[in-house]
């Protein structure tokens, strides 16, 4: 009984931390990119990208490899800061807040913008520790019971709880590839971000694991703004509501997924989705 009250307070606390950002503005566009250019040293990798990404729902980035999808994705949580040669110009806002503003603490930004990587990269620690790490460094929980609760609810949301609830202390690296990737998703949502970035999250997985992750993404879209990079057009069509097509560092076209796949405006998009190149 007592447990459940604690549970409630934990969830409330986490939920409050989240809605604090949400209530800031009821704007339709969650992420707004204006004239974003990215350079790796002299290489101009991303050219004048403008896009609006709505709150809630799934946005897919497609395009041939090397066209700058990952680069743009990594701009949104400023992962590009870790690459010394990388330079970003232009403006990206999340909830009207410029994320390249000097006064913004990048660490807090990343707490709001979770990320799931191409290759599952669980920490070589226990499953529990993997999920608990984020809430711990952000001080989201006050005690062990709250932490247990956050871990459980995150694993449940990631559709992994039933598979791992009896072995939370086992190493995260001992799971199968698909489970590892869902663990990484659980780890990302444990921090309760607004946005989850996924960079080809299924490219290292077999079809069955891919299906599970896709189902998961579909379930999560009502609570999070998900941006997914994928090289599979079928996947984009299956999971996303909106799609952006990148080509040679430019954003060629962005529209509802249905439009992009049925009635693209640009010839390059047409060529790509019909398999002429890529």
């Amino acid at each position: 009984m007592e447990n459940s009250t604690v549970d409630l307070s934990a969830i409330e606390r986490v939920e409050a931390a989240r809605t604090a950002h949400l209530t800031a503005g009821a704007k339709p566009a969650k992420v707004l990119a204006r004239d974003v250019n990215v350079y790796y040293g002299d290489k101009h990798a991303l050219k004048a990208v403008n896009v609006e990404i709505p709150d809630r729902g799934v946005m897919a980035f497609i395009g041939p490899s090397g066209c700058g999808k990952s680069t743009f994705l990594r701009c949104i949580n400023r992962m590009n800061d870790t690459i010394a040669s990388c330079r970003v110009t232009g403006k990206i806002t999340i909830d009207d807040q410029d994320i390249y503003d000097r006064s913004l603490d990048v660490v807090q930004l990343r707490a709001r913008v979770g990320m799931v990587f191409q290759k599952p990269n669980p920490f070589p620690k226990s499953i529990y520790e993997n999920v608990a790490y984020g809430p711990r460094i952000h001080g989201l929980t006050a005690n062990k019971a709250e932490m247990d609760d956050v871990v459980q609810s995150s694993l449940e949301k990631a559709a992994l709880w039933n598979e791992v609830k009896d072995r939370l202390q086992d190493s995260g690296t001992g799971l199968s590839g698909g489970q590892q990737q869902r663990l990484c998703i659980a780890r990302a949502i444990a921090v309760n971000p607004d946005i989850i970035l996924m960079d080809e999250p299924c490219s290292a997985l077999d079809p069955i694991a891919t299906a599970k992750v896709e189902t998961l993404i579909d379930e999560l879209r009502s609570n999070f703004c998900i941006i997914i990079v994928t090289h599979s057009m079928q996947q984009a069509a299956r999971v996303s509501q909106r799609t952006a097509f990148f080509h040679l560092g430019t954003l060629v076209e962005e529209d509802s997924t249905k439009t992009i796949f049925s009635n693209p405006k640009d010839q390059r998009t047409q060529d790509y989705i019909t398999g002429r190149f890529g």
Partner: protein
Amino acid sequence: MTDATSTLPTQLPPARRRAIPPDVAAARVRRRYASERTFKALGIGALALTALFLVMLLTSIIVKSLPAFSEHRAVMSVLVDAAVVDPDGKRNADTLRSADYASLTRAAITTVIPGIEGRSARKALTGLLSSGAADDLRALVIADPSIIGTTIKTPMLFSDDVDLYLKGDTGRYTTAAGVAELTPSDVKGDITLTAADQSFAALIAELEREGISADAEAGAHVLDGRIPSRVVYVNGGAVKVVKATANTLTGPVLLPLSSVSPAKTGSWNLTTYAQPESRRRISDQEIVFIDKIKSAGAIERGFNWRFFTSGDSREPELAGIRGALIGTALTLFVTLILCLPIGVLAAIYLEEFAPKNWLTDIIEVNINNLAAVPSIVFGLLGLAVFLNYFNLPRSAPLVGGLVLALLVLPTIIISARAAIKAVPPSIREAAIGLGASQQQAVFHHVLPLAMPGIMTGTIIGMAHALGETAPLLMIGMVAFIVDVPTNISDAATVLPVQIYLWSDLPEAAFQQRTAAAIVVLLGFLFAMNGAAIWLRNKFERRW
């Protein structure tokens, strides 16, 4: 395509090859295979020779060290004379400590071989014992004062020369049974042994062969210290032969005879000690005494614990490595607490945080070159900077540890960097993607994963520091230090330096102890390297 075909001749001319007769070709192939075999044999030979070097090195040292691990003691009854130890009977600790225990041990050994007269003979007898015997007795009395006034049976350490003699270094001898009846002229002093004429012809002939001819003045062959010495054992005593004629042997009594009655043929013997007296560190007199004590069954041989429990000493039989071991431990402690954190933090900086600029370049180049600077140069640094500039204490483990820390720092930085580099970037990305700061990612995730590799590198670095000698010589850790150091600013020495110091001493016993100390040092080194390998195998993670 078509162009190319048209310019080609329709048919290629036959390849112009020198026709090689089959037997020549076969011989050629055989020659090539022979050279292949030679080459391979050279490789194996080189490896085998290297292995042989190592085996020779290790066996020569181990063989040399073996005698040092045991010691000989005389088991004797000692009267712990209250008049000497505690004249006022108050059991005062100072009195007990400062008493003349050497007189007690001297008295004890003279009771084993009674009846020795003459200063030099008595001195030879009491000199058989090490000065450490009295110290041991003192320790016994202080530990248990109730033994004062009683007679106790206790082992007493022999001096190193006696010990070496008993270990068979100098003791080669041959014995010839007496061939005639022999009559001593007295039981002590300089005496003459007379036998029937020509009884000693064989001895005389032997002496002639050794280059001794009859001395006209003495009318006899005179033996000296440059030829093997001869001792006649007769009537329970021993007589050293100094002059020999065909029927008499003359010389001093080394061990009193029981009587002057003629000894029958075969009941006495003439013993020849192959090594001339002048070429050994132990005299005929002493040999006779030792043999007497030995035949009394009062000699025991035991493990040389003292080697591990005592500090350095001028007396080889008392010298031990405890001081050097503690000094080594203190020095390495200082080294470890300095170079492990500094090395690891520097490696973290260079791998994870360093911007690409000239400063970073300088640091990197520096570390690589520092790793190859001769160790003695670090000694110069220690001398000029730590001793002369900062006035730190000479000979202290503090300075030794500082110098060694700088010496192994590059090794540790390089191995720590390798270990950090081996942690895949996906781990860092995962943490950073969750909102961990770069430092949190490094200290929470990367560093723990790199730790086994860092520890392996550290152990290897410490093993390197453990074997280092030259820089420590520069900062004065070569002093002769008897006391076991207790803190890092005491004067101390370390094991390799102790080895160096002992190796310079002339006594054979010190050579053996040097080898024994080397065995201990190598034991530590093998253990450390073994630990490093174990750690690497156990925790090595392939990503």
